[in-house]
């Protein structure tokens, strides 16, 4: 804010040499503002386009039938995304169950235990984990985890368990990075105070530093949730794509995103519009998640 005001005052104080120069100054300011406005326009256009196509389709199918219908069978004209929503939610929950505890513990290690020489090795490795394209995760899941689950636990291997595991690994870097940053942002005096009161290192970390970094950690978890929620390329290969309510960890599932990716290539007519409606539902979920993150950030300030 200070920067901007200094800059503004100075710019106003500097008398433009000519009218052309002044016009250029104002013209470029408008160009910069338009560039910023493109962000707003993009969100609005995406929103409007999705809903223009989705709303009539949902109207034709019936809101209740669409949102809560348990049968997705485009061939028979049944477009209920109930199973898909449940599939998405259980897959995301599974990913969080796998990813959050491990991620938080690793963040603690990185922030408090890791010696410098080891940090120089660990950090790049975690960055690589963050950089691996999702399609590679999916293929790894398909070639390694699916056969493993099939041989050890039975079933086809294309299961909720496989999906949750791969998604859990995928959200690890997000959770580790953001929690580590927020743990490091807690004043060191909290930690020292706890130690001085006789707490062990672990007690100081888990009872003092963790609560102090809570809002950052919650943000990390929610960002991980958002990533798992919308992930497509990895999930579509390993989830089995069976649109049924899963009853066990070894059942195949189908998520909203994998449903779109699977069928968009050949869908026509109402089927295609229904898939766009699925994307709109995903979009709404992500809007809610983004809102929660922004509220958390505001609270922190």
């Amino acid at each position, binding site marked *: 804010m200070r920067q901007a005001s200094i800059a503004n005052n100075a*710019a106003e104080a500097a008398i433009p040499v000519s009218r052309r120069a002044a016009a250029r*100054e104002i013209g470029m300011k408008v160009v910069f503002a338009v560039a910023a406005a493109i*962000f707003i326009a993009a969100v609005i256009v995406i929103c409007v386009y999705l809903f223009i196509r989705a709303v009539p389709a949902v109207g034709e199918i019936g809101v209740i039938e669409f949102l809560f219908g348990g049968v997705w069978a485009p061939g028979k004209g049944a477009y209920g995304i109930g199973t898909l929503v449940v599939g998405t939610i259980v897959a995301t929950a599974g990913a969080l169950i796998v990813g959050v505890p491990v991620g938080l513990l690793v963040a603690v290690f990185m922030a408090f235990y890791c010696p410098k020489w080891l940090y120089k090795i660990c950090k790049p490795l975690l960055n690589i984990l963050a950089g691996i394209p999702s399609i590679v995760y999916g293929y790894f899941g398909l070639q390694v985890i699916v056969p493993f689950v099939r041989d050890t636990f039975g079933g086809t291997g294309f299961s909720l368990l496989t999906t949750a595991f791969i998604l859990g690994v995928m959200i690890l870097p997000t959770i580790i990075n953001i929690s580590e940053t927020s743990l490091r942002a807690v004043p060191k005096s909290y930690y020292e105070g706890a130690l001085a009161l006789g707490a062990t290192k672990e007690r100081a970390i888990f009872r003092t530093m963790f609560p102090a970094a809570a809002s950052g950690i919650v943000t990390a978890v929610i960002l991980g949730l958002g990533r798992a929620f919308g992930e497509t390329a990895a999930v579509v290969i390993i989830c089995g794509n069976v649109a049924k309510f899963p009853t066990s960890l070894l059942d195949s599932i189908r998520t909203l995103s994998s449903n779109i990716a699977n069928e968009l290539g050949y869908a026509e007519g109402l089927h295609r519009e229904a898939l766009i409606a699925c994307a709109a539902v995903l979009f709404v979920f992500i809007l809610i998640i983004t809102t929660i993150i922004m509220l958390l950030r505001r609270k922190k300030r």
Partner: protein
Amino acid sequence: MAKEIVLREGEVDVSHIVPINRQSFADKARAYAHKPCSLIGFALVLLATLITLAMVLWILVYVFMQGVPHLTADIFAVRWTPENMSMLPSLVNTLTIAGISLVVAGVVGIFAAVFMVEYAKSTNIFVKIVRVAAETLSGIPSIVYGIFGMMFFVELCGWGNSLLGGAFTMALMMLPLIMRTTEEALRAVPDSFREGSFALGAGKLRTIFRIILPSAMPGIVSGIILGLGRVVGETMALVYTAGSAFNVRYPASPMNQGCTLTVYMYSLINEGNEYIGQAWAVAVVLIVLVVLINGVAEFIGNKLKKEY
């Protein structure tokens, strides 16, 4: 000969307490023996870290073991044929899409960041809305971008499945990343640079283009390179915008369709068991590319930090 300790009233015997920075391993072990919960906590932290590192190494080693033997001259052949399944054309497509989308997103993202940092006050309602919009854009899943790109660029603009449509979809996806990194870089430029420039009689525009942007360049470039990594790794936003033609050709123009490396890998996987090795080979190339790109971005970004 131990010295007799005489405790006066109110005093506590502290002679057995070892200062925390002089604790030996045995002292620590003894402390842990008294506090099983702390020991368990410590063990869990170590365990989780070992699991994570093992997981990273497992994935990397496995992918390389499977993929490297298939990195033959055939798979890098200049022309794609059903016999060699060359990935070179799709690599070219990836770079084409990356080039176009980085130019588009770069210009818009950098200009927007300049507006946010140099012109607007952060209490401005417009700025707040732009921030909310950027946050929203960065959260939207790639499949939603894909479906939007298909509806907007492919159908409404009539571009058909084309590299251009894919590139614009990717540009949209990268906007928030580029704006955020550029903003950080601009804010890292000391105010004295601006004041000095104004004091020498430079106008605002000249200050921005001649002083601020050049000083912030490493940060901006590092953001753009991160964006490049994003394009290389993206699949779902491109399948339905740039096309997923299995017979990979060199695009004659940006209006032709063509698949990128990731989409090529996706197609190979969907073919079933026939092309397992080739898909692993593509995976190796993808990981190497992304790691290289991110490494370069970090290297350039660190250079900026050292300067000020």
